[in-house]
């Protein structure tokens, strides 16, 4: 018996306690405090896991805690914590009329439910539980996306709910077929456990596995935002509150990709081990090229970053698809760096929107003149997202190029093309934001505390990681996963 169940405790506590607190400020601080507790617990367990070779199990082996999940949980808990601090100032600066007090309570409960459900996806060893948690993550984030209840927010939330509902339905179909495959080996309900499935997949007919994986890929791929199933993603990112856009982009997409990585890992010993790789690489490239071209057409700041997320997730899935130790290292480093820099960018988008009350790129000018600190942080995050040195994304993209070079020379052409196009598009769109002159004066704010440091901390980590690559975080995970992939 071990105590990894403690990981879930802060979120559960938050879900129970926060709806009862009427004081807006108090609730926001308590939410941040509990998220900090969550991060401390995650850091402690991750430290122990990295010095431990065996995975830990919990609740009848339904939950598993290995190095892969430790890595993702640490990232999730860290971003969950900084986002909840950022949300304190963000929510106080929102119009009182905009956010009804009841909705305010919904926000914190929904937020922690969202964090909890993602945590359960990362911990689940039971593929049924994984599905349930993923559906719960959809439902809780839909509420958060539609929080403002404006026509646009309602539409975005509706589209998100319907598209991901259909997607997640297909993932369930894939799960059912896989469970049926396991039942041919007379495992009973144990056949849902990932640790058992990984042992028996070589005995299950490959055709059945292939059908099941395709359904799972479509299902969880909808949540990753693979083109052409990406339609919900830009709307949901653009219309939700900034902290939620940050969580969607920085965490949820990774979590969905994590689920696919688990299933890929499961099929590594079968005769169809190439299928997940082909699908991930193909859809990765489609995503990168499509998003790079779409970036040129964007007129709104948050939509621009949403398309950039599609591009980066494409890069990560290419890395996971290639599956060599170098590619995995690049992929995991990219997960880490992209999450940190993209959340920082979304935080700053929130700041920009609160001072200018618009997110239309052509209406935002002279940010350095209006809000210098926000402008500096936004600029650094944009430069990081474009993959310029010394950000960690430069290192991860370089490593990905090297891994692709080793894997197949021809694939380098679309990859470099995608990277260059995305670079140009973001440069073209974002350059006028900062340096032109403006007559606009920034709108007054209620509070400035907690408004900048979360993004500054993220960007500091991204730059530090570009100089001293955090191999101590990634190498053990690669070691565990690459042995089998």
């Amino acid at each position, binding site marked *: 018996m071990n105590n990894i169940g403690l990981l879930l405790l802060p979120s559960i506590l938050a879900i129970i306690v926060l709806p009862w607190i009427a004081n807006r400020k108090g609730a926001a601080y308590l939410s941040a405090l509990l998220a900090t507790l969550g991060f401390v617990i995650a850091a402690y367990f991750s430290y122990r896991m990295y010095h431990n070779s065996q995975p830990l199990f919990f609740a009848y082996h339904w939950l598993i805690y290995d190095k892969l999940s430790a890595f993702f949980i640490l990232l999730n808990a860290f971003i969950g914590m900084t986002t909840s601090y950022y949300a304190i100032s963000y929510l106080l600066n929102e119009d009182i009329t905009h956010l009804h007090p009841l909705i305010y309570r919904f926000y914190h409960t929904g937020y922690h439910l969202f964090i909890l459900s993602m945590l359960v996806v990362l911990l689940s060893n*039971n593929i*049924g*539980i994984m*599905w*349930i948690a993923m*559906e*719960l993550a*959809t*439902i809780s984030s*839909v*509420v958060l996306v*539609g929080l403002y*209840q404006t*026509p*646009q927010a*309602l*539409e*975005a*939330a*509706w*589209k998100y*709910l*319907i598209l991901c*509902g*259909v997607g997640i*339905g297909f993932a*369930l*179909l894939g799960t*059912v*077929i896989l*469970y*049926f495959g396991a*039942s041919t080996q007379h495992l009973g*309900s144990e056949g*849902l456990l990932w640790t058992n499935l990984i042992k028996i997949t070589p005995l299950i*007919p490959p*055709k*059945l596995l292939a*059908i099941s994986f395709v359904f799972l890929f479509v299902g969880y791929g909808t949540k990753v935002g693979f083109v052409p199933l990406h339609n919900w993603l830009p*709307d949901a990112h*653009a*219309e939700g509150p900034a902290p939620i856009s940050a969580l969607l982009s920085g965490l949820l997409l990774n979590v969905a990709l994590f689920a696919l990585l688990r299933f890929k890992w499961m099929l590594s010993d079968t005769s169809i081990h190439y299928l997940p790789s082909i699908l991930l690489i193909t859809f990765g490239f489609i995503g990168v090229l499509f998003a790079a071209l*779409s970036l040129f*057409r964007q*007129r709104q700041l948050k939509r621009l970053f949403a398309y950039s997320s599609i591009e980066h997730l494409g890069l990560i899935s290419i890395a996971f698809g290639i599956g060599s130790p170098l590619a995995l290292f690049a992929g995991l480093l990219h997960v880490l760096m992209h999450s940190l820099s993209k959340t920082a960018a979304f935080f700053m988008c929130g700041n920009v929107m609160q001072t200018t009350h618009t997110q239309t790129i052509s209406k935002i000018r002279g940010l350095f003149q209006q809000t210098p600190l926000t402008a500096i942080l936004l600029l650094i995050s944009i430069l990081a997202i474009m993959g310029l040195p010394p950000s960690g994304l430069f290192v991860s993209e370089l490593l990905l190029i090297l891994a692709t070079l080793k894997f197949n020379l021809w694939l380098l052409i679309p990859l470099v093309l995608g990277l260059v196009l995305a670079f140009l598009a973001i440069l073209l769109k974002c350059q006028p934001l900062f340096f032109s002159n403006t007559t606009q004066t920034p709108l007054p704010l209620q509070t400035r505390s907690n408004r900048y440091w979360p993004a500054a901390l993220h960007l500091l980590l991204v730059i530090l990681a570009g100089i001293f690559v955090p191999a101590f975080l990634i190498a053990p995970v690669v070691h565990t996963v690459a042995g089998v992939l």
Partner: protein
Amino acid sequence: MIINSWLLFLISLMLLSSTLMIMQSHITSLIKLLILQNIILACYILTKALHHPELALWISFAITTFIKVIVLPVLLWKLTRFLKLSGRIEPIVNKATLLIIATVMILFGLLLGHKTAVIIPHALLSGFSLGLANAFVAVILIIFRRKAVSQVIGLLVLENSIFIIAATLSTGFPWLIELGMSFDILMGFMIFTLFLIRIRQQYGSFQMSHIEKLRERV
């Protein structure tokens, strides 16, 4: 043998009800057909439970009956009364074309099912293929309708098809998982309802054209 035929009959009835749903122009008849489909699903699981008396199946039957035959219909009915849903739904394409598309999708489902003929035992094959076909019909129901309510119903039909496939292929999931899934679906439905009410308040109708404003503009 008779049991197998009866199960196949039930699953065919389910597909028939989904196909009928595609042809409906009134929201109320759509809801009635969905309730009928939920009852068919419960009957299916009951038959299985009577045939293979296992605790898991009985619990599964209890969960399905409680959530899909009692709670969801009551909620749906209250929702129709509350929102005064009696209007017609205009599909994007005309009914004849829609039926042809549905037939093609059903054929596709059957073919996909028969691709697995070597793997899946013969007795289960027809049930599995029909379930798949039902899932595809549900997708059509979601794509080719202009009203938000019919999209929700399409999603519920999709969930039904997956449940029936699960019940056909194995004796269903372990009960705790099934409870979790049903709970998720119920919660999802509640959220849908909240959004439907908000959409109605914002626009005065459920016509999808109102909520198709967020499009890429070149």
